[in-house]
């Protein structure tokens, strides 16, 4: 019993150390973004900004096309996420509710695509998009992001539909609903938590994507946030307080997800995984 009472203390210290390991870099990012440029070149560094200023935020938004970057990301990420979810939800429902020839092969195929290293598609996409004039367009990036997200999202939706009892479908059928009606009025509402967490997953991944966006956009006005700030750092006029402000702005959508939908997200994400 004595061991039991002693253990949590050591455990608590470890957890607090872990939290510090996470929070110290985040704290450093936040305070740097509020410092004035000369203060970031102080040695030893100041651990609290001497005078709070929003200069860095202003500079990033006014002097760099951060607004454009952000808007491009929003268009590409929202567009690809919506289309992905539509496709993945239908496929997940179809594979979970109907017996059809080739269903096993289809599901296996969805999983196998996870193994493809995405770089192998970088050159083909570069060439294909160039051929159809889709380099430097939102549509081009949307197409690429859909191809990344559909497989895993289909799998997540399939796992989620499998957790919804099928008796409900039968009951609805007796009430005279056709299959489309069952999908729309029964399955869809019940699977909303699954759809929500799958959407968030696709959203986060697309917002994060860097390599393809960097390769498939060349003009300044078409860059996404990831690419935009990834290249801002090479500018000699930029300071660390500006970079940290840009970093915080670029993280806003994901931080909003973190604040408002964290639990929903993790529950949906782990529902399928734990079951297997």
């Amino acid at each position, binding site marked *: 019993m004595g*061991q*039991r009472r002693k*253990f*949590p203390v050591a*455990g*608590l210290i470890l*957890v607090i150390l*872990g939290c510090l390991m*996470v929070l110290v*870099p*985040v704290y*450093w990012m936040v305070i740097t973004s509020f410092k004035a440029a000369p203060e970031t070149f102080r*040695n*030893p*560094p100041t651990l609290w900004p001497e005078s709070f200023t929003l200069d860095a935020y202003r500079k990033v938004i006014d002097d760099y096309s951060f607004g454009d970057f952000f808007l491009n990301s929003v268009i590409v990420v929202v567009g690809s996420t919506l289309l992905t979810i539509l496709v*993945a939800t*239908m*496929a997940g429902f*179809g*594979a979970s*509710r*109907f*017996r059809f020839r080739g269903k096993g092969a289809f599901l296996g195929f*969805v999983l196998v*695509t*996870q*193994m493809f*290293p*995405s*770089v*192998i598609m*970088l*050159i*083909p996409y570069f060439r294909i998009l160039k051929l159809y004039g889709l380099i430097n367009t939102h549509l081009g990036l949307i*197409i690429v992001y859909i*191809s990344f997200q*559909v*497989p895993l999202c289909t799998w997540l939706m399939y796992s989620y539909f499998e957790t919804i009892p099928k008796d409900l479908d*039968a009951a609805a*059928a007796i009430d*005279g609903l*056709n*299959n489309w009606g069952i999908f729309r009025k029964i399955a869809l509402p019940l699977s909303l938590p699954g759809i929500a967490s799958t959407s968030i997953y696709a959203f986060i991944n697309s917002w994060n994507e*860097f*390599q393809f966006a960097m*390769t498939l956009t060349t003009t300044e006005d078409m860059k996404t946030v*990831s690419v935009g700030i*990834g290249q801002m750092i090479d500018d000699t006029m930029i300071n*660390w307080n500006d*970079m*940290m402000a840009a970093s915080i702005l*670029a993280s806003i959508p*994901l931080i909003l*997800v*973190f604040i408002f939908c*964290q639990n929903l997200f*993790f529950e949906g994400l*782990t529902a399928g*995984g*734990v079951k297997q």
Partner: protein
Amino acid sequence: MKQPALRHVGDLHQNKLGYLFTAPAFLVLVLMVVYPLIYGIVISFFDTNLVNRFDFVGLKYYKRLIVDETFYASLGRTAIFTIFTVAGRTVLAVLFANLLVMDSMPCKTVFRSILVLPWFFPDVVVGILWRWLYNANYGLFNFILRTIGLADAPIEWLSNSKTAMWAVIMVSIWKGFPFMMVMLLAALQTISKDLYEAAELDGCGVFQRFLHVTLPGIMPVLSTTLMLEIMWCFKHFTLIWNLTKGGPVDATQVVSIDIYNTAFQYTRYGESSTRAVFVFVIIIILTVMQKKMKRKEA
């Protein structure tokens, strides 16, 4: 779209409906995943500028690649990056998941929220942030090290070829351990408390309980997550690119950066595709090995 009720539907209808609902996903997979993939494999047999020159060279690039020492060096670096990143993430994830699941741990939700935070920053942001933390003259880490007396001269973490890879791995662990921790937390919650009590009655200590109850309980989730992590790390690009661009010299040049540079710095698209195909084959072999091991366990 008038269809007879579901339970009366025969196989024919099941077939039709199944195809109808899965058709969009199937089209996406074939047109947008399989087609580019095959295209990529085809390009690996060509000397091409992707515009007007497509000279078939057969296996020339493959023959060159298998004797290319610099490629093996970047494969080796990828292996080091992957092994240490995944190991580090696993240790932290297992540790914190087990601590957060303890009944006696206070403020669980607060701690969990803090610990998952790195996962909610974009890779690019994490790369830039750590470049600033590692900064030799004005960075936080060198300040801390000097203050506690561990270093007298500033350490150039990212521009010293001896430390660069380890510095990158640290960042990668920091960014990636929360995902695994969340998966393990969910798995741990499915383990029955009775098992722990039984183990305690049998006189098992903390470590033995972990070995005989916890580990078997989380094994299915752990092995799936490990496999995913290994594949992700093996092809990882963004963090490393934003921290070091593969440098200094080529100290952190992993295969994904090697493939990218071959294509888009040196415009040798065919050779770059050859490398990508090679990595693809390695990932297939790893997956098959994992499947076999899983079957052995069962």
